[in-house]
């Protein structure tokens, strides 16, 4: 189908974008790469009065290491990030997960922050941000605030972003010395939405496991390495997440992925840790 009618604005500065958002609030919709939004417009699941295109804003097109984070601007595409030669060193989990995000053709346009803003419960980047305890930087004419991943995503396709706020960047913590990471997902075909996605971070005697695709947002759990009843812990987690049947997989299949793939992902993260 075709998108419904909307006005289009392309601000030249972040301040202009914020002014438009302050004026129009939830009647405005920000577009960066549009790899989720354009499909929703075409299907008429979205119908903004004004579309605010931030994809050409220079100020949001940079990726930089600030302190202990890789700060990724809102116009940075998934392909830009994947092209960084030092990504596997800087944020290994992103280097592992990004190839699973959509297809090469959508990563060329889709942004990291856009994926976070969309908040699909099965998508890889919100899972990574949650597993790494990263942050989202939001700005409005009222000021700037940073939200932890857990505060940012509030549920299925919903976030704590206020209508007048622009996501200007995502902050992914840089690899801590000695930390190990692993990522795996089960999807119908490579590039499809994950039925279940798993991300593990092993560090300092603790392992954190993130699970996407079951609850309405990524769920994170943490255990000490020496925990021996890991199968029982994963089984409990699988039930806790309250999986549901849908077109793609049964609840039981989802639990089986957590129980079956979980130990492998954890073991792999631990084997990369030192």
């Amino acid at each position: 189908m075709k998108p419904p009618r909307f006005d289009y604005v392309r601000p030249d500065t972040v301040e202009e974008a914020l002014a438009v958002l302050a004026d129009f609030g939830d009647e405005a919709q920000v577009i960066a790469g549009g790899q989720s939004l354009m499909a929703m417009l075409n299907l008429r699941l979205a119908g903004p009065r004004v579309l605010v295109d931030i994809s050409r804003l220079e100020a949001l097109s940079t990726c930089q290491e600030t302190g202990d984070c890789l700060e990724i601007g809102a116009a940075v595409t998934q392909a830009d990030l994947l092209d960084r030669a030092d990504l596997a060193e800087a944020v290994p989990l992103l280097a592992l997960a990004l190839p699973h995000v959509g297809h090469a053709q959508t990563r060329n346009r889709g942004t990291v922050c856009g994926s976070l803003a969309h908040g699909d419960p099965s998508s890889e980047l919100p899972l990574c941000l949650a597993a790494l305890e990263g942050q989202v930087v939001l700005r409005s004419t009222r000021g700037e605030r940073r939200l932890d991943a857990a505060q940012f995503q509030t549920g299925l396709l919903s976030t704590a972003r206020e209508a007048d706020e622009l996501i200007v960047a995502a902050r992914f913590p840089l690899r801590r010395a000695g930390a190990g990471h692993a990522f795996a997902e089960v999807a119908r075909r490579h590039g499809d939405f994950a039925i279940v996605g798993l991300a593990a971070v092993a560090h300092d005697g603790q392992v954190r496991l993130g699970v996407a695709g079951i609850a309405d947002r990524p769920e994170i759990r943490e255990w000490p390495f020496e925990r021996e009843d890991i199968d029982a812990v994963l089984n409990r987690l699988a039930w806790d997440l309250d999986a549901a049947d849908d077109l793609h997989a049964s609840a039981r299949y989802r639990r089986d992925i957590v129980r079956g793939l979980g130990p492998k992902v954890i073991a792999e993260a631990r084997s990369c840790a030192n």
Partner: protein
Amino acid sequence: MRELNGAARHRIGFTLNGRAVSGWAEPRLLLTDFLRQELGETGTHVGCEHGICGACTIRIDGRAVRGCLYLAVQADGREVQTVEGLADPDGALNALQRAFRKHHALQCGYCTPGLLMSLTDLFARTPRPSEAQILDVVGGHLCRCTGYAGIMAAAREVAAEP
């Protein structure tokens, strides 16, 4: 700040396969429809119109993207490459197109323009792609005819060319 009224048509211009083109578009007009209906360049196909099938894949500023997930107004000032730009001006097919023909990588041809543009993008970036890299790119397309074997054979042949 560029502000375009949703009810009006606006002048849009970009470089298409090396030449300057322009036309009129409402903000909601998809780039695929602008190419096909406003410019009459019907080589780019439209399948699902929500990013799944890959038939609409074109290159913008040297990157393969979905034409159906791109607004015409967003292409203003960009460099756009479509399947029409692949063959020589005299109509002689390029190496990738010849390999597609040789390996029966197309039957109905609906998916073909998109696949050609995705593979063109791959070879531009990675002249000797691995099997996995080819698969990754072909995996972003649906072909309901060929079973993909011919497409893979054609891509492999081009990848192995000196």
